[in-house]
């Protein structure tokens, strides 16, 4: 399984580089799908089939569909791509990239310090995950339910199209003047 891991992680890194350098949002999203699917294969090779299935269903399915719907609703096309091309100059991305590369080098040095340990080849089955999820983690599952509920209510409230959002102190009342 190690060859599968190396190939899929290489594909994931390559696709992610393509995501952050594209100008057109739709192209970036399609490379993001490739990146998520490659990470799902990585999960599978690490012995986590449940996480791999969730990655495909939720990330590459639901979240990407949300993004694509919003990009289509906003009608971002050629203009956005040209605007991005104007924004992504060398002097814009050179500084942050160098800083971030320094951080990455430090992290790699720290990770290479201890003795290397091999990953076990055994699989953590969905049965173990779900027994633990609905056993000791049940309170966290309920809290995640609250979080998703607030997410739905917040999105529905914010997404409403109102004419103008004025603070109540700034509103002029017709009966006062």
């Amino acid at each position, binding site marked *: 399984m190690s060859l599968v891991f190396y190939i899929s992680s290489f594909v994931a890194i390559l696709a992610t580089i393509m995501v952050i350098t594209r100008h057109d949002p739709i192209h970036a999203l399609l490379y993001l799908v490739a990146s998520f699917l490659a990470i799902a294969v990585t*999960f599978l090779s690490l012995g986590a089939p449940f996480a791999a299935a969730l990655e495909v269903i939720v990330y590459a399915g639901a979240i990407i569909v949300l993004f694509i719907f919003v990009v289509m609703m906003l009608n971002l096309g050629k203009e956005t791509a040209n*605007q991005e091309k104007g924004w992504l100059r060398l002097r814009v991305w050179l500084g942050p990239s160098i800083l971030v590369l320094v951080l990455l080098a430090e992290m790699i040095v720290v*990770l290479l310090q201890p003795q290397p340990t091999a990953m076990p080849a055994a699989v*953590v089955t969905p049965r173990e995950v779900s027994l633990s999820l609905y056993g000791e983690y049940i309170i966290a599952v309920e809290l995640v339910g609250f*979080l998703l509920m607030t997410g739905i209510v917040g*999105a529905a409230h*914010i997404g409403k199209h109102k004419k103008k959002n004025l603070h109540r102190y700034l509103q002029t009342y017709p009966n006062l003047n």
Partner: protein
Amino acid sequence: MSTVHAHTVLIVAAILFVLGLAGVLTRKNIIFMLISIEIMLNAAGLAFVAAGSRWQQADGQIMYLFILAMAAAEVSVALALVLQIQHQHKTLDVEQLTALKD
């Protein structure tokens, strides 16, 4: 076939996280910044799954599940905000969105 070492997986997760961070720092379009945040959350999830697989415990995948739910809630609220911003300001440039009141 050689085995995968634990630090290799963590280095892959670190590279993905750093790529997402570079995306957040260099982009000015809100949509691209949200995409980069998704990349960073995914890299954190990869690190959790790798740790769970290293110790043969289910907790890593459970933490990944919670990260997933958090990412889904976050992205729905953030995309609703993006729709409102485009509706009210007619732009997605973060440098032009400087006023709190409209």
